[in-house]
């Protein structure tokens, strides 16, 4: 099948491509030509007019919770992939805190096989320790052979510095990163960030140092072992400052931030809306300011959603008892474009780096290639479309998000990958 993406702009910062108003000819999902097409080339091709839209290397969300196996009522591999496609992603990496945890080659294969026919490429992050218990390191060699791209006990930090040291040493053999949810267990357990708001709301506090201490520990252990550490959902000013210092020293440390941590502060909790409850919690305005600064200066490498589906029944509970987390696959790009691009915090090139290039580099994955002959892996953006988030139209099985009804500017209008296209709410085989 021949498809022509007409009158489109193309940006690929890694390949130094930035051209305006060209056509892209795809033959069976392969890039045949980027440029102006002749009359003959236009023959018997399906033409999609994409004037003013932008083709960028397919976006990748490196922090997604699929609830399969275990809580298929909240999300399955397939609904998660559908949500990702609808949100503008051609790839995601899923976290291992399922039931059972992803700590064996069988579970890695089970998930990868499940999504093998989907447009969205699924990569698996396996548990760093057996059952995510922090006691025995997981069979990393076998896991990576089955396709795991990183290791993490996400949901909690790796329990002790001793085990962390071992996982960093062992994973170094495969050059795969350890992804850390940084939270000191002895300071954890609260419901929101410690500050004037937690005092006024009477909610049990989580001090920011719970995160800072583990970030510090992890940087030190990573420096000592030379292993790769990736800080998930960084949220505090101090943690960001430590990562900045570590990078200056040239250490193997990278970091990601979620859209909610750059677009909301703990003021959002004032309504006791359980959709503002997540871990790490929403922090203060000062933390948000530092995060914006560090997105710009490169301290934060990527933006990831920490998509965490929860059933309505579980979220409709008392704030203290509600589970942590929100869905985010379908609001990430809109929030990044609204809060970062349109507010002139980041350029479009920088946004592409943080949502497409850098996550793949961290996970040692190939970066979409825009050369003729390569398989198309595209996200197509409309930077200026103004739209309202409507959770009822979300492809996720869960609806837990504080961004419902939020007005955003900019979204992904289509994705193309693995010889398939998702456009106008439909999957099309190319």
């Amino acid at each position, binding site marked *: 099948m021949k498809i022509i993406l007409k009158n489109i702009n193309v940006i690929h910062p890694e390949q130094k491509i930035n051209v305006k108003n060209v056509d892209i000819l795809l033959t069976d999902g392969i890039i045949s030509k980027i440029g102006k097409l002749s009359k003959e080339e236009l023959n018997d091709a399906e033409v999609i007019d994409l004037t003013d839209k932008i083709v960028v290397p397919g976006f990748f969300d490196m922090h997604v919770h699929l609830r399969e196996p275990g809580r298929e009522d909240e999300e399955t591999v397939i609904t998660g992939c559908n949500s990702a496609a609808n949100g503008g992603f051609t790839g995601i990496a899923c976290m291992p805190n399922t039931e059972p945890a992803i700590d064996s080659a069988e579970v890695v294969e089970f998930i990868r096989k499940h999504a093998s026919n989907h447009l969205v490429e699924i990569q698996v992050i396996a548990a760093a320790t057996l059952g995510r218990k922090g006691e025995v390191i997981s069979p990393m060699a076998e896991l990576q052979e089955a396709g795991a791209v990183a290791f993490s006990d996400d949901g909690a930090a790796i329990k002790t510095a001793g085990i962390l040291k071992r996982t960093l040493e062992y994973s170094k053999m495969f050059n795969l990163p350890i992804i850390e949810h940084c939270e000191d267990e002895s300071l954890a357990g609260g419901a929101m960030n410690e*500050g*004037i708001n937690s*005092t006024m709301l*009477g909610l049990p506090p989580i001090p920011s140092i719970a995160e800072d201490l583990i970030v510090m520990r992890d940087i030190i252990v990573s420096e000592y072992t030379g292993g790769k550490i990736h800080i998930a959902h960084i949220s505090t000013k101090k943690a960001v400052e430590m990562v900045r210092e570590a990078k200056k020293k040239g250490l193997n440390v990278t970091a990601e931030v979620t859209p909610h941590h750059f677009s909301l502060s703990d003021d959002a909790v004032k309504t006791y809306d359980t959709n503002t409850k997540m871990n790490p919690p929403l922090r203060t305005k000062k933390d948000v300011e530092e995060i914006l600064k560090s997105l710009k200066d490169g301290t934060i490498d990527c933006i990831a959603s920490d998509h965490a589906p929860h059933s309505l*029944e579980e979220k409709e509970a*008392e*704030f*203290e*008892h509600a589970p942590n987390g929100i869905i985010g696959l379908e609001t990430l790009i809109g929030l990044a474009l609204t809060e970062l691009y349109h507010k002139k915090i980041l350029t479009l090139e920088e946004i592409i780096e943080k949502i497409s290039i850098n996550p793949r580099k961290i996970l040692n994955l190939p970066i979409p290639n825009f050369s003729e002959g390569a398989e198309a892996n595209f996200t197509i953006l409309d930077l200026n479309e103004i739209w309202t988030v409507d959770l009822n139209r979300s492809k996720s099985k869960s609806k837990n998000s504080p961004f419902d009804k939020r007005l955003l500017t900019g979204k992904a209008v289509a994705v193309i990958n693995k010889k398939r296209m998702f456009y106008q709410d439909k999957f099309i085989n190319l």
Partner: protein
Amino acid sequence: MPLKSRHLLGLEGVPKEDIQLILDTATTFREVLERPIKKVPTLQGKTIVNLFYENSTRTRISFELAEKRLSADSINFAVSSSSVSKGESFKDTIRNIEAMKVDMVVVRHSAAGAPLFLTQICDANIINAGDGIHEHPTQALLDMYSIREKLRKLEGLKVCIVGDIAHSRVALSNIYGLMTMGAEISVCGPLTMIPRYIEDLGVKVIHDIDEAIQENDVLNVLRIQLERKAREYFPSIREYAKYFGITEERLEKNGKDILILHPGPINRGVELSSGVADGLNQIILQQVTNGVAIRMAVLYLLGTLK
């Protein structure tokens, strides 16, 4: 003049006129409580549910009595534990209760924000009888009433709240209410029991009990919750009693006439020495009577809102 809100969820943001109105209305009911027949027909035909997710004999009895004195029909609904362990969700419970066509719900819950959640899923007037470590507005109102009764004013008074501020719902309501009425507030206790950033509310932090006695007109002494996890926040009861307990010697040494309140029940020999506790019996029992009057006032003002 009616109240500005149809619920009483806390004292944060409640305007001075409303607090004044509740206190003044309570004065009227206080007088009713002295009559031989202590019942008025004001809320006849109204149904009130006392929804208690946490044990609280005193507060529940006080509300129940207030409801009966106002001739309302009241039902007690006690749930021994939170929804999490119980199976039925909080929301389902509320829907069930609402289906019984109730007019008002008095709610006590271990989780902060539960009363606000109730207002979103249920049509009744909601009265917070204590939510987690957030607010306990009727307790603060009765404290304010008792202070006003004794000292004839609230404005300009210096009031110190003593004890475990971080795990107290009484403290926050007292701070909001008393500050709105123009009092100066400080808190005194071990720093492990003082929430961070509380100064941002305009509250002074003291950790020397003698200084607290010296500088204030009123001490509102909170009960140290020996049975709760608050116990982990100080080294020993002995040490607490020694450095933060109020004793006759301390009061004598500071040579000062000071009004001491306590929401009860007292841990004798911990936050108050037995001697001080005995000397206070009068006002503590008055606080209990005032509590009924305050709750009658709140129920009446909300229950008769158009």
